[in-house]
């Protein structure tokens, strides 16, 4: 079992003929993901390593029965691509693109309210159900299939670090999701926690947050009220100076809000096992799970 994606997920890649799109589509295929179509407007009829390319998401859904879109479209056109995917009938949209303007994403978010598709990202590494489907840019081999732990994170490489430590301890993962480092994103911590909580094979959850916004505080409240499974938490940015954007567009401390200290306190308050030393996260998980 897993959440959101599995071996039956049929992926189309928007931007498959671009440098990034092509490279990562190949990596996903090599991992065993069912990549059934690509979309690049104007290149319909071509193929990439035998994967048929279509002019639109609607064509790809109709012809190749795709139900998930992986987006590598550059920032100026990414909002358009996400909305096209949502309108085109896929169930899950994974937007890797970093640097989409905030106002564009705010409009996308409102637009998505009327749609059934789930958006993961943008500015994220994607989602992987180890051994079944890798829909994103994470390195496949660091993951260990079979569960029992679900991972949800706002970061990319920090998630790899966490997953790597879990695997080294012999702890497998059900699904690992990067929800992205932007201030406005699709799927949030609570959506993932809820899904992991309902997934029978997931026995524990690792939640990786960072400075900026209040998503971790809200997630902590949700955990207190709903989640019965053990949760290990980590927050990056204890040493980040206020008012500076730390790489991710959403990683900024504004006034007294968004600090790592506040988030750590909120998580401890509801009984989450907070890891203060990233170097020991694997050990802590081995103890808790």
């Amino acid at each position, binding site marked *: 079992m897993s959440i959101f994606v599995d071996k039956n997920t049929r992926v189309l890649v928007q931007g498959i003929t671009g440098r*990034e799109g092509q490279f990562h589509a190949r990596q996903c295929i090599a991992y065993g993901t069912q990549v059934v179509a690509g979309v690049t407007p104007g290149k319909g009829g071509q193929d990439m390593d035998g994967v048929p390319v279509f002019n639109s998401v609607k064509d790809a859904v109709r012809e190749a029965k795709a139900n998930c879109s992986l987006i590598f479209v550059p*920032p*100026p056109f990414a909002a358009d691509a996400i909305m096209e995917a949502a309108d085109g009938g896929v169930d899950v949209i994974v937007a890797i693109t970093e640097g*989409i*303007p*905030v*106002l*564009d*994403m*705010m*409009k996308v*978010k*409102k*637009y998505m309210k009327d749609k059934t598709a789930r958006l993961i990202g943008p500015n994220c590494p994607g989602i992987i159900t180890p051994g079944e489907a890798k829909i994103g*840019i*994470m*390195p496949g*081999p*660091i993951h260990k299939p079979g569960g029992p732990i679900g991972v949800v*994170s*706002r*970061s*990319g*490489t*920090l*998630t*790899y*670090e966490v997953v*790597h430590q879990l695997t080294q301890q012999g702890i497998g993962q059900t699904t690992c999701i990067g929800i992205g*480092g932007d*201030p*406005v994103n699709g799927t949030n911590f609570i959506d993932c926690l809820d899904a992991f909580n309902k997934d029978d094979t997931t026995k524990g959850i690792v939640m*990786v947050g*960072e*400075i900026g*916004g*209040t998503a971790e505080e809200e997630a902590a409240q949700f955990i207190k009220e709903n989640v019965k499974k053990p949760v290990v938490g*980590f927050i*990056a*940015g*204890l*040493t*980040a*100076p206020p008012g*500076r*954007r*730390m*790489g*991710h*567009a*959403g*990683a900024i401390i504004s*006034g*007294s809000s968004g600090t*790592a200290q506040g988030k750590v306190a909120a998580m401890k308050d509801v009984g989450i096992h907070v890891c*203060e*030393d*990233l*170097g*020991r996260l694997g050990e802590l998980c081995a103890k808790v799970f």
Partner: protein
Amino acid sequence: MKIHEYQAKELFRKFDIPVPQGSPASSVDEAVNIAKTLGGYPVVVKAQIHAGGRGKGGGVKLAKSEDEAKQIAGEILGMTLVTHQTGPEGKEVKKLLVEQGLDIAKELYFSILPDRATAKVVIMVSEAGGMDIEKVADETPEKIIKVYIDPLLGIQGYHIREVCFGLNMSPAAMKAFTPMLRNFYKMFMAYDCSLVEINPLVVTGDEKVIALDAKVNFDDSALFRHKDIVEYRDLDEEDPLEVEASQYNLNYINLDGNVGNMVNGAGLAMATMDIIKLAGAEPANFLDVGGGASAEMVENGFRIILSDPNVRGILINIFGGILRCDVLAEGVVQAAKKTGIKVPVVVRMEGTNVEKGRQILADSGLNLTTAVDLKDAANKVAELVK
């Protein structure tokens, strides 16, 4: 991206948003000449730096005559202005804004910003204008009114009424402010602003509403579609190392510590800074070379870290996914040979082609310390800078 007050007011004029009459000046003579055209005294002389708190720091003064204007302009121009936002080293004032003095009846606080939690645009106003708004929010949150606008719907009449009644505006002021608020919203959306803040927004004795101050920030991610705003960038206001890093597409922030660090990915970079601190040392910077960094980017990153004279040791932490460890190792070796590294370097690598990467480092003949994991790396670098 931040711009100066005089630039923000230039933008306001384009959107028919009322601002005091005035112009920027780069010399005392120019300032005096502008003062003469404003139709009488007093005039206001304002230092143009990006940091807030200029008034308290002595960078904003009222001049009651031409002589006074000359004297004040001479004092402020070239001074090192220290405010709570500049840090103790302060900022040299290179430009002034000279404006007409107004007959102020009421000072209000006004801002527009994107609200990340609701994905809406929020207008925040308060009758407690001219004060530190963070303080007002902490102590008397009921004095702040927030009106949320759906970006797909845009600003509606009732939004404007909510703002005006919330500010207890007179019918005359409300009439003046209604088109002004529409224009503020229009500008905010048209230019992908991340903040428009007017503190204070003033109501004059004759019931006009005027933006006395102006702070406008822009979403960096949207600058590709606003070439005219990019022209406003003032490199004097930025850290020179951060400017250089941005030219190489590196995400660099200069900090006060002595352990330089280079990491791929923003989250891991923050976590690396944290673990350096946990090991008893202080990070000298934040540097994210990106998920797909090349050997060349690593080399540039190295040079920038080493340009900071406080750096006494470097920790490189790379989790190779997209960026392969052998590519990184080559970049490190290249950079070390070219720049002649004089401080100890600890390297921690994990991920794709890690064995090959470690071999390249070992064969390089350079004085590099290899760490087995993150904790080991942080402890080793902290020990080396002691």
